[in-house]
């Protein structure tokens, strides 16, 4: 008759409806995505590989945003700042300190994570709208910092910074574009595995409990402050890493690369892809990179109007985003198959 045993059944009821994941079926989807991603290395070339690398990098960034805003309820309109920090950290490590790219990217993730923790502390006091505004201010301020006289020797100031060339993995028969893409894909696999694992267990439930009902979470002995700070840190780590990957793909960083619109773009991508979904981040990344190309055929000045229209459409028609749509379709097929 302990409190724990009487809470357990309730906790399972309150837990979010995790999709029924049994054994091998749960691995089929990730395995398929990895296979498709790997196949792209040899099916695509040049420009397409650049697009693919950017899609995967943005997917990691949106994954970070989903973790913080979707799963933990801390709305951030400033994730562009973390992209900027990650991108610049990678550029500076590679060009000023000669650090190889495969080491620079994880390091920049750690640097951004530290910044994330620092931001998380005052963020604990802010709720919803105020947090969104404060993070937006961060998104505006951080790229400007790169122009500051004190650091412009390191950051390249207004003209930006070129990254050194990547040496291709010629032993595997890959050229530079393929190398960058495969490296980005490998980092993505690790990042997604990390997050899926994190969200599946106690940590995921704690984060969502904090989002849904912080007071109740506190009374269930969940350390709200710790989890909120940790969520910020991990989110920053992911988005910073994505910033580093983006910097490598473009081989250039500048304050203009991280204009404050980027933060809004990430949020739109997260919503369209599926706000509370890990795999939705992939849809979101694809949306951000590919939509402007399609919009150009309608009207060359169109992208922002279409971003807005898509966001409204998604809110009305499929609030769980594209991922929610796919999941609903899968569930409908499953029930039909039985």
């Amino acid at each position, binding site marked *: 008759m302990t409190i724990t045993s009487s809470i357990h059944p309730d906790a399972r009821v309150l837990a979010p409806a995790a999709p029924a994941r049994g054994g091998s079926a749960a691995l089929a989807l990730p395995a398929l995505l990895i296979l498709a991603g790997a196949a792209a290395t040899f099916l695509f070339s040049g420009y397409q590989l650049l*697009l693919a690398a950017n899609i995967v990098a943005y997917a990691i960034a949106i994954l970070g945003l989903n973790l913080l805003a979707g799963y933990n309820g801390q709305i951030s309109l400033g994730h562009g700042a973390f992209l900027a920090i990650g991108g610049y950290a990678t550029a500076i490590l590679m060009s000023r300190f000669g650090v190889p790219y495969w080491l620079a990217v994880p390091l920049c993730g750690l640097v951004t994570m530290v910044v994330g923790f620092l931001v998380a502390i005052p963020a604990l006091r802010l709720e919803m709208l105020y947090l969104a505004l404060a993070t937006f201010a961060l998104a505006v301020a951080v790229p400007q910092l790169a122009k500051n006289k004190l650091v412009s020797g390191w950051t390249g100031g207004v003209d930006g910074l070129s990254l050194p060339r990547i040496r291709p993995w010629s032993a595997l028969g890959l050229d530079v574009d393929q190398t960058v893409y495969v490296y980005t894909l490998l980092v993505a696999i690790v990042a997604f595995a990390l997050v899926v694992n994190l969200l599946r267990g106690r940590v995921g439930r704690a984060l969502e409990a904090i989002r849904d009902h912080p007071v109740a979470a506190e009374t269930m002995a969940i350390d709200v402050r710790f989890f909120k700070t940790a969520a910020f840190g991990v989110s920053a780590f992911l988005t910073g890493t994505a910033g580093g990957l983006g910097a490598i*793909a473009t081989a250039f960083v500048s304050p203009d690369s991280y204009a404050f619109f980027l933060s809004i773009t990430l949020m739109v991508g997260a919503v369209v892809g599926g706000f509370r979904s890990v795999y939705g981040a992939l849809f979101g990344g694809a949306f951000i990179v590919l939509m402007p190309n399609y919009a150009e055929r309608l009207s060359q*000045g169109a992208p922002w109007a279409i971003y807005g229209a898509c966001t409204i459409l998604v809110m009305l028609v499929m609030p769980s985003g594209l991922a929610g749509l796919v999941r609903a379709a899968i569930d409908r097929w499953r029930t039909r198959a039985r």
Partner: protein
Amino acid sequence: MALTRRTFALSTAAAALLPRAASAATKFPGVTDTEIRIGSTGPLSGPAASWSTVNKVVRALFESVNAAGGVNGRQLKLILLDDGYSPPRTVEQTRKLVEVEQVSFVTAQIGSAPGLAARRYLNDAKVPQLFACSGADAWIDEIRTYPWSLGWAPLYSDEGRAAGKWIAANKPGAKVAILYQNDEAGRGYLRGLKEGLGAASPGLLRAESYESTDPSVDSQIVSLQSTGADVLALSCNPKTSVQAIRKSQDTWRPQMFMNSSMTSVAQVLTPAGLERAKGALSFAFAKDPTSPAWANDPGVRDFNAMMDKFGAGLPHDALAALGASLGATVVQLVRQCGNDLSRENLVKQTMAIDLDVPMLLPGVRIHTTPQNRHPVRELRAQRFDGTSWTLVAQK
């Protein structure tokens, strides 16, 4: 089945990314007997969209040339893609222009950061990046490292240098102060001003900067006033220029030097006060189509006619004049290449352009050599007389 649906979605996306079938093999990339494909990128969307007037006027000029039969029998086809002034997107679109659209060369890319981002790829791919719309020093300083890339307009530092030299020559003993926007244009102008002033004494007393998001520059102006300077150089955007002119001409009234983005009578000087701006100096290279001084100029009349016919809806302003002049340079280059439109020859011919462009100021001529590849470097001094800018007579 559900897995197949996701696979289907993925493969459709993949198919969407695949390029169209390659066009029939041609001797020179992007060139056929009837057409030459030319690529460009610019901010067609987003906050910097007004700059894309330049690309659109280049396109209008090409269309007017095509209507008259093209160049050596070939139509000039400009393929313009949007990059939203975002360097990562510029790289994507530039690669699309080269690999998917298969253009001969890329021209008139707007912006320093976007152009510099695309520079390395274009040089690696040996595709000419001609006449980039950016005044950054890098286009001249690093031309040996990136020989396939070329700027066009005078650099921001050229304007500052012209101002500094003018002050040193005509106002010895002047005490100079400068307010500049903290971006590449402002920083470049400051650098050039210092160089132009050189050993002049006392020279530059103080430099104050501002961010484009600052609501007011009153404190900077007051700080500059306190130095006792009698010359104020300004490198500002239109909105801030109005504030700076008003504040500085209140009690201080220094001799003003303005950079070229501040000289619009309608946009800047009228709101600031025409009387206040009287006597200000600036350095320009192109004719302002809105200025009454050029109302009867045949070059401007032709420009207006071309814009009315092929550039409907576009403003007839300084950016349009820049676009028309740049477009004319491209047309001349293609003409000079004749039937050898290889990328190598295109670059070679850029070192041998000798051209008078109707929309450039008298005395400003494009004359390139292998040692001096940058097309436009000259600037002419002009003074505001209360209604329009008039050229200061050349010595």
